[in-house]
């Protein structure tokens, strides 16, 4: 057997292993989709059904009959506020950090890093007290504030990488050609930064959309639930009876986000790795 065929056989063996692992890893996601389409009598059978051949979308109807849409509105509002505010702050901060040398710049970058390391779970008691003092418990504004503070450090970090990637000479060339500083910025820098803004925006979106702990602490009234909280309460009340409905709810919470995530994950990882390793 020549080396080449040996290498090829080995590659094939590893390939089979990789596919098997992939299938195991995907299984819970598949199972969620599969279960959400099963009728009542099939989901509580002695043997699980692996393919929803006689599937029904009835479970989705049951979800829509609950207060799903009110919750969706709360989640969408909080997420929207967080994304817009975080992008605005992070954008200006990143610009200032990479374009100007000012006093305290270095310590600012360090501060951003350190804040990023602080666990939200160590803070929620004081945050709860803080919002209580400001009469902002159970309010969209209060929760958004906390989310903005949570995502801004990392979005600054990501955007800084993108701003550094825009060569200064381009801006300077534009200045030489008689553009004002603002014009140069809007015509040259901003378009080049667009992918970075999209990636950071999606990061903020994912964080706010999926966050559970803080919303559990701040949103104590049922009418102010965000989607993750709603999913949990829905599970609590239906665990014995309606797994198909619960899975349908999970699909509704998960699938839109997953599609978003798949679109930008590449940028997020490379941003994180380059931000972490190369700065």
């Amino acid at each position, binding site marked *: 057997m020549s080396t080449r065929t040996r290498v090829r056989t080995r*590659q094939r063996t590893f390939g*089979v292993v990789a596919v098997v692992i992939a299938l195991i890893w995907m299984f*819970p996601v598949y199972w969620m989709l599969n279960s959400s389409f099963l009728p009542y009598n099939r989901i509580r059978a002695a043997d699980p059904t692996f393919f929803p051949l006689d599937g029904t979308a009835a479970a989705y109807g049951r979800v829509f009959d609950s207060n799903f849409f009110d919750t969706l509105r709360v989640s969408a509002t909080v997420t929207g506020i967080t994304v817009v505010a975080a992008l605005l702050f992070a954008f200006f*901060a990143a610009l200032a950090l990479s374009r100007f040398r000012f006093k305290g710049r270095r310590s600012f970058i360090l501060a951003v890093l350190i804040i990023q390391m602080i666990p939200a*779970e160590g803070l929620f008691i*004081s945050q*709860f007290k803080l919002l209580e003092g400001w009469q902002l418990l159970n309010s969209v504004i209060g929760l958004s504030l906390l989310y903005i503070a949570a995502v801004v450090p990392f979005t600054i970090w990501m955007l800084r990488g993108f701003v550094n990637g825009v060569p200064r000479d381009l801006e300077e060339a534009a200045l030489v050609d008689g553009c004002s500083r603002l014009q140069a910025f809007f015509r040259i820098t901003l378009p080049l930064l667009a992918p970075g803004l999209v990636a950071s925006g999606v990061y903020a979106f994912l964080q706010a959309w999926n966050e559970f702990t803080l919303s559990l602490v701040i949103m104590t009234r049922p009418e102010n639930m965000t989607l993750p909280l709603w*999913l949990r309460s829905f599970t609590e009340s239906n665990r014995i009876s309606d797994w198909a409905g619960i899975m349908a709810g999970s699909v509704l919470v998960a699938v839109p986000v997953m599609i978003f995530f798949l679109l930008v994950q590449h940028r997020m990882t490379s941003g994180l790795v380059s931000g972490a390793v190369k700065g």
Partner: protein
Amino acid sequence: MVPALAVLVAALGYPLYRQAVMSFQEYGLAQQFGQPPEWVGLDNYVTLVTDSYLWTVIVRSVLFCIVNAAITMVVGTALAVLMTLVGRGPRLTLQIGLLLAWAMPHLASLTVWQWLFDSQYGVINWLLTNLGLDQFAGHSWLIDQLSFFTVATVIVVWMSVPFVAFSVYAGLTQVPGELYEAAEIDGSTAWQRFRQITVPLVKPVLLIVALLQIIWDLKVFTQIFVLQDAGGITAETNLIGTYIYRLGLGEGEFGLAAAASWFVLLLTVALSLYYVRVLVREEEL
């Protein structure tokens, strides 16, 4: 550009303000009954430190964190290496599988895992029973402390591996192939090549990913919280995060909870300082 600086202050000011509020937790160390809090000095800390339950929870959290971070790192790195060894098709399949797990919102995946581990209709019990392990028919996974944490570990590892695998894979693809060829000509074994070329070159990535894992696994909250609600026994399964939550918002002991938060913060900051130092050494700010 003046507005930029103004917003900069705002963007930095708020987190800093939060930091300040944190330091006020010293002031929050009084029990609150709607009256102005009174100063009790270090009483809360003394109460906590002398309470053996807190130490149980801390030791439990640290153990959970080490086990989870270690398994995640090993599996994640192994999968990253596997990606470099296979052809394009299997690699894409594996990457898609990992991405799906990574993209899934935590609450949704926790819900699915509860269903998988369901004592009566869960696939996992069905599978084990069909493999001839009859004791798993109707087995409840969350009642027993050890098996509760086994379930938690499976879920946390499943969620965290993708991030490690992708980061390490990104690091691996930056290793120049000529190095391996040269080593192969020199007659080295595959294991030697891995130890002496791959590991040193991806070490920075490994280091950072490992630290992030440790920080994340130390403050694991949602997974434990949801599993406890699904049938775990709270006192036996609390980790630091859920302990603080139940102490503060469950029992209204805000003072004690704030003091306990400080333990977590100090622990995390101690870890992060090392990380920040490594970063500062490696990059010119």
